[in-house]
């Protein structure tokens, strides 16, 4: 039997933090070893007995004067809480058990916890090794809408051109609302163990919130009411919001939708009739390029783990196309507004130029989609066919 270990609380009371010293002494005691408690706090003996009772330790309280307050015989529950506990890392797990809940990756998790509703908990379904680096880039690239855009720059456009800008901005806001809602829907379902993936999507949601703000602000800059929102456009976006599978939704949104938007935003920056429009499209373009990169990295990783997903993704494009076959697709006003923006005026010769440029944009978008599909392992012919089925609403 070990001799008693001695813990001296000096003048510290158990109501003033002295329990820390007792906890430490008890947890360090060898099996069967008694902890002798010394101290001069006036109520130490009363509190020692009460503390030991609540902690499940036997105690003998000293009688008479002297520095010894009592002797603790640690109870069997000492340390019991951590029996069966498990480390949740530090490596990224193949599967994060739902019982790990919200614990930090690498934390030791007490056994017996409740299951958390994080159904996306397979590494193969959510993880990409690119996530940490993309998150670092995303965090470093955040910009402040109040200062990143010179809102006082001159915007003096013809009424017709301004109306076209407002219509395009109205359309962009609608699409960015979808791009915000889709990752937001999955954010709360992904196990926090995959924290870099959660972080990338969280920043993506914040990015889209800023895009909604700056596009709205540009639309309102000229004092005009916002433009038109069509049934067909919204129907196309609803199919994105309703997609229940994370990989499929991420594919449709980030690889195809946002991928197509890269060309649109680049086109708008290039042909913007005013510096504010050019700037907001430039800022959004940089963010969207990151979203597409993450989508590509995620899908590449998922497809590597599960090649059977490839035909399912293709089927999702077909299903979406079929669902939208009876809708108008891109609204006429948006298409026309893009022509006017690219034309810069309503002169017939300028409109011809604008029309040609929008046709070129359409071809660029198709080319981009095909390139990304090929990169994800689709044969060129299938990639071309799938690209042609993409929604006419771009996103």
């Amino acid at each position, binding site marked *: 039997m070990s001799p008693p270990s001695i813990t001296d609380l000096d003048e510290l009371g*158990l109501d003033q933090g002295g329990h820390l010293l007792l906890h430490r002494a008890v947890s360090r005691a060898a099996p069967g070893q008694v902890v002798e408690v010394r101290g001069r706090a006036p109520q130490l003996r009363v509190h020692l007995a009460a503390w030991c009772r609540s902690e499940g330790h036997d105690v003998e309280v000293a009688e008479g004067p002297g520095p010894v307050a009592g002797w603790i015989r640690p109870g069997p529950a000492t340390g019991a809480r951590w029996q069966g506990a498990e480390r949740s890392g530090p490596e990224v797990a193949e599967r994060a058990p739902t019982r790990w809940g919200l614990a930090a990756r690498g934390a030791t998790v007490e056994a017996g916890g409740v299951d958390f509703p994080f159904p996306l908990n397979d590494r193969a379904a959510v993880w990409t090794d690119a996530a940490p680096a993309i998150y670092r880039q995303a965090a470093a690239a955040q910009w402040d809408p109040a200062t990143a855009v010179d809102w006082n720059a001159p915007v003096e456009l013809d009424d017709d051109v301004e109306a076209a800008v407002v219509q395009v901005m109205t359309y962009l806001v609608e699409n960015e609302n979808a791009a915000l809602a889709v990752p937001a829907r999955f954010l709360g379902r992904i196990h926090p163990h995959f924290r870099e993936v959660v972080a990338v999507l969280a920043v993506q949601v914040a990015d889209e919130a800023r895009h909604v703000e700056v596009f709205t602000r540009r639309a309102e800059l000229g004092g005009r009411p916002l433009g038109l929102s069509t049934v067909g456009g919204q129907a196309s976006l609803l199919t994105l919001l309703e997609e229940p599978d994370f990989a499929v939704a991420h594919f449709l949104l980030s690889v195809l939708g946002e991928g197509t938007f890269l060309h649109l935003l680049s086109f708008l920056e290039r042909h913007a009739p005013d510096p504010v429009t050019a700037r907001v499209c430039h800022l959004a373009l940089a963010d969207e390029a990151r979203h597409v990169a993450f989508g590509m990295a995620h899908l590449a990783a998922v497809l590597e783990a599960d090649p059977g997903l490839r035909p399912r993704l293709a089927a999702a494009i077909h299903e979406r196309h079929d669902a939208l076959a009876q809708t108008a697709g891109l609204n006429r006003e948006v298409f026309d507004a893009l022509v006017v923006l690219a034309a810069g005026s309503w002169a017939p010769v300028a409109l011809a130029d604008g029309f040609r440029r929008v046709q070129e944009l359409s071809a660029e978008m198709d080319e981009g989609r095909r390139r990304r599909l090929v990169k994800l392992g689709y044969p060129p012919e299938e990639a071309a066919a799938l690209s042609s089925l993409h929604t006419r609403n771009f996103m």
Partner: protein
Amino acid sequence: METLLMGAVAYDAKVVTIWDGFKQWFSANGLAFDYVLYSNYERQVEALLDGHVHVAWNSPLAWARAHRMAKARGIEVAAVAMRDTDCDLTSVVVVNAGSGIEDLAGLAGRRVAVGAVDSPQATLIPLSHLRSEGLEPGQDFDLVHHQVGVGKHGDHIGGERDAARALVAGTVDAACMIDSNHLLFSAEGTLPPGSTRIIAQTPSYDHCNFTAVATAPAALVEQFRSLLLGMSYDDPEVRPLLDLEGLKAWRVGRVTGYAQLEAAVDESGFYDEEGHVAAVDYRP
């Protein structure tokens, strides 16, 4: 399959969580178990003696009444099990450190705060202790009750906390409370650190027990006791239930720790010998 029926007093909403959890655990371990909630211990004890429930999770005062009623009816009740935290409690009498009151004699003519009229730990036992030291409540000092959760035998901590607050506010000269609550109130700041002094501590006494009536099916009661005693704090399924109920381990019930309370009940006339409620100012 016969079901063991247990009574418990709903002193807090968590009581439902606790006994629902126990019910599931007992069921998973082969004991058909259900519980009935009462709003006060008097109703629960009467139900136990009338055979409406087999076992009651009783306060020490409810135990005192149950065995008086049982004796009067010629039947037996037994303490089946209790928490480790029900054993060897004490109550303390606390004054403000700067009050100049050095001992119990200094309480003569003063105002002493206690808990609810039916609280064993904050009223009945400490007042009995003061009587044993020659101080008759209401005669030698004024009594200030803090009637929170009357009928719940002091299970609700509010009465003791209100007594502690009255002491800090200076509206009373002393307050009675369980030793662990003096530690709790001091640590949480209800009693500012170092602001109070303990001038008396009662001898140790025991608190709650599961009381079984002799008419209950013996095999079920034994299975109940056996399962309780087998609950281990090591078991992650069990640990949350034990944490909620405030124990590390169940112990075999003992009735050797209730003498102080029995004396207090007799002195104050709280119950008569047959377990009738005799306290005139008690409205559970």
